[in-house]
């Protein structure tokens, strides 16, 4: 082959190859174009094979040109391949497309009961303040439920709450506890001061179920007995509690009230968190009645063998249902006990 002929063919094949690459409609066509342009039977290969028969100078110049053409064709083919691959991929992706607005595959979330959530929130506030959780039985004796708490047999406070008694032969003094306060007595009988406990639990009253009453409900109660405990400590502790549970702007209000096992006794209101204490439908006058509290009555300390001259203490208690109803705006106490999952699932994110 003449060098001039070879160079002409190379130029023609460069043009041809570029045209074929450009014309390839898919990756298979591009493979065919590559074979046609650069394959063993291609005119380009014929030129390469003919190089051996050329004079050294011609071989150098034609060879150089052949390499240039090959690089250019490779580049053209690669570029086209990238284009075609992109097209093919987008086709595959398009075919794989889903409707992202369809709902995801969910696993059920599960939820704690709102009373449990409320109990934990309260317990956590007090354990961080150094209180320990204490628990006691739900069936109590008269001593723990009443007498030791300064409610002797003929005390008028006994008729205030209608107790549920259990019918166990030979044990007429057994009843379902009406307050978690009985745990105070158990704890103090078992240990010496200092006592800092918080006791959540189930309590019972002989009440017919309606929107605001249930024979079964829950309380949480706190007790601190130590040297030098004062009413001011009670106020500070409950103020700290209210701020921790309901927010830093909470205020609390103490007014005189009566519980046989504390004196001075107090009713504790917290400022309404709905209206920030200005008065609304939830609270009426800006305050929500939340706790009963007071200084442990000296008779109670004497009943457990503590010296009331040396030790003083405070106690407080609240109804979990009431706190939960206020926190979440639950209108009817029966909702807590029906097990309706549409109710329960509303508290998955509650804390």
């Amino acid at each position, binding site marked *: 082959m003449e060098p001039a002929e070879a160079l002409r063919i190379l130029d023609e094949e460069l043009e041809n190859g570029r045209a074929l690459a450009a014309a390839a409609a898919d990756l298979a066509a591009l493979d065919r174009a590559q074979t046609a342009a650069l394959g063993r039977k291609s005119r380009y290969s014929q030129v390469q094979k003919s190089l051996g028969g050329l004079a050294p100078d011609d071989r150098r110049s034609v060879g150089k040109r052949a390499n240039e053409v090959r690089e250019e064709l490779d580049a053209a083919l690669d570029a086209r391949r990238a284009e075609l691959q992109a097209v093919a991929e987008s086709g595959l992706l398009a075919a794989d497309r889903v409707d992202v607005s369809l709902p995801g595959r969910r696993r059920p979330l*599960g939820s704690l009961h709102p009373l*449990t959530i409320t109990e934990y929130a309260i317990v956590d506030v007090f354990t961080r303040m150094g209180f320990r*959780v204490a628990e006691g039985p*739900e069936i109590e004796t008269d001593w723990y439920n009443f007498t030791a708490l300064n409610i002797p047999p003929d005390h008028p406070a006994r008729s205030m709450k209608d107790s*549920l*008694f259990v019918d166990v032969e030979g044990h007429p003094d057994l009843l379902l506890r009406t307050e978690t306060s009985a745990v105070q007595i158990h704890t103090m009988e078992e240990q010496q001061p200092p006592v800092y406990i918080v006791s959540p639990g189930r309590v019972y009253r002989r009440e017919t179920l309606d929107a605001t009453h249930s024979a079964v409900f829950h309380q949480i109660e706190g007790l601190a007995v130590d040297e030098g405990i004062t009413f001011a400590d009670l106020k500070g502790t409950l103020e700290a509690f209210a701020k921790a549970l309901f927010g830093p702007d909470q205020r609390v209000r103490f007014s005189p009230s009566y519980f046989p096992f504390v004196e001075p006794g107090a009713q504790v209101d917290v400022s309404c968190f709905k209206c920030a204490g200005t008065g609304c439908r939830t609270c009426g006058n800006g305050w929500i009645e939340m706790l009963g509290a007071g200084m442990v009555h000296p008779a109670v300390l004497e009943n457990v063998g503590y010296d009331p001259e040396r030790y003083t203490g405070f106690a407080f208690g609240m109804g979990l249902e009431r706190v939960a109803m206020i926190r979440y705006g639950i209108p009817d106490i029966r909702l807590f006990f029906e*097990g309706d999952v549409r109710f329960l699932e509303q508290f998955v994110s509650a804390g």
Partner: protein
Amino acid sequence: MKVVLSWLREFCPTDLPADELAEALTAVGVKVEEILRPWDGLSGVVVAEVLEVADHPDSDKLCVTRVRTTNGEATVVAGVRNMEAGDLVPYAPPGSRVPLLPDPLEVRSLRGVESEGMLCSPRELNVADVHTGIMVLPSDSPLGADVGERFGLADAVLDIEIEPNRPDLMSVIGVAREASAVTGVPLTIPDAGVSEGEEPATDVARVEVVDLERCPYYLARVIRGVGLGESPVTAQARLTAAGMRPISNVVDATNYILLEVGHPLHPFDLSLLDGASIIVRRAEEGEELTTLDGVIRSLTGEDLLIADRSRGVAVAGVMGSAAAEVSQATTDVLLESAYFQPGGILRTARRLGLSTEASMRFERGADPEAVAFAAGRAAHLIAEWSGGTVLAGAAEAGSVSPRRHVSVRPQRASAVLGTGELTGPEVGRRLASVGFVVQDRDDVVDAEVPSFRVDVQCEIDLIEEIVRVDRGYERIGATLPEVRQPGGMPPPYAFRRRLRELLVRQGLAEVRSLSFASAADLDLMGDPPDRAIRLANPLSAEEGSLRTRLTPGLLRALQHNQARNVLTARVFEVGTVFRAGAPVDEVEKVGFAITGPASHGWSDPDRELDFFDARGIVEVVLEGLGVRDWTLGEPAPMPFHPGRSATVTVAGRHAGLVGELHPRVAADWDLSGRVAIAVLAVEALRSGVDPDVAYAEVPRFPPARRDLAFIVREDVPAGDLRSALLDAGGEVTGSVELFDVFAGGPIPEGKRNLAFSVDFRVPDRTLTDDEVDEAVARIATRLAADFGAELRG
């Protein structure tokens, strides 16, 4: 206790408006729950004289009256005709208002007769709950006078919550005392004001107290020549506003004093008392008496009785009997005023199931010094309202106990309250403001306790008084105690929290069921009645016992959801069950119940929650707790499915069960579809926890994974096959997962195919094919020998 404010102002003439007074009283512990205003909207009603009552031309029921006021005459149509010409009546002319009507009165045509306003019944004026006739006013009422002003139908009523330690607040004067303390307006209590005749009461009546312990003091006044009739309008209105029904002048007078002074009184018809005698004694065992509510009461030797010479006439301090009741025929009244020992009254009232205005006061503690005062004041009112004469003096027995003295150390008060140092004079000043007679020194203040303050018995009671008055609660500062211990939770409480958390992670919603069980619940669970703790005074038969199990409560929750078309429900509960023991066992249980479609929507295959979902939850929860040693055993008894249930053993102890509800029981409970349940004893789980958590090296070399499928008889438990496989494979056998179970098709009748994916590995290198083949061969040989299992090629 409802306190009519105009009445209170007679004793404490404060001009504070109702809401401000209520706020001030509440701040010192006299809790005003509500301010009622029964006479709001009463205006312009005047005293009018009836001139004529004529038939209505066009109605049988209505009548047409002519009335006269100082403004002239008017025609008024009325619906009743109890009034007669000459009567004085409350007349509401056009433009006036009555409390019960929303709008002012107008001239209105009633069946063709123009009616200029209306005549009022007692109910329309909130004087008494009587609506059967027009109210006829006393004949000395000035014509044209404003009815509201004339009869005190004004001002608010405070509804006060009474704590059981403060019976002294169950009276107008008691609340007036507190009002005086908070406002600084002096208390003005008149003396009884009784004017007596010459005849001494002791000439006509005798009083004997046999049981001076239960009745330390008894006093009887006698009023002769009474004429029963209505009591004054103002008194009726006040009784009504306080929640009592006006009855007659004599009875109303005693009730009026009950409300005003707080001391219960009882009037007897003197002529009906045998021997004109009162004998205060214990009842005979079984002695009967018909109380004023018409119920025959059988008394015991514990009950105190007011008797005459032949019979009981009242259950002391609780309720009178019909035997000596005052009536229209009564002319002479013996008026009882006594002090009864509180405990005795409480026990009798409780045993009889009677709670009366009298018993509520006596059982909390009456004021012994009020006995004579209340009797004198009531005798005076009876005489004034009924025209009788009060005899001189009183027949009495026993005596008034002296006042208590209690002392308080100001330094102790400061220490308990956490206030700055309180001085003796300051403590004395505060106590004196609420009626204590004090002698103060710096180290100790002696206080003579007023007789009405039964609640003040010891030093701490005085400390409460010191902080209660002067809004002391608000003025104490707020500090935090120095707690010298870390807070925390005992292990059982923390364990329960962990348990709940794991169940929630499994997608279960926590429920809390009531703790009661019916006979049907016990029967369902196969518990004999004597295993349960019965309630002595249940609210209903459905709540006759305490629950012995969690299962019925869980089923009720599922039922509640299914009945509302919520088909998928997954619920759990952690709670106490109760069983007869020594004497009572309280056992803590955790249980869950699941039912309904397992699918979560469009992309999941349809499937029903069943035994394996429940078992899976049990497995994962036990794993999460660290309970490793557990097994399933025999099927659980009723109400569980015999072929889809098993008992659960943890660390060798029976711990509970997992299983589906028996289909027959499900049908009885109207539960459709499968219901899977597990109930476990919390303590059994807790004691089965392996607390050690230690790092084990994560495998560095890949395992050789082989899928081994065995054809084996259907009745060979997969669990047994798996255990044998692990055992035979030896220590090179890592994880074993059962990934397929099927029968039918190419599998011979009576057999099934169990396919396991088994990872073989050693820690320090990759196993060779030969080593794996060897292990597989060991497994195949063993399973063939033990179970006739055939390894598929």
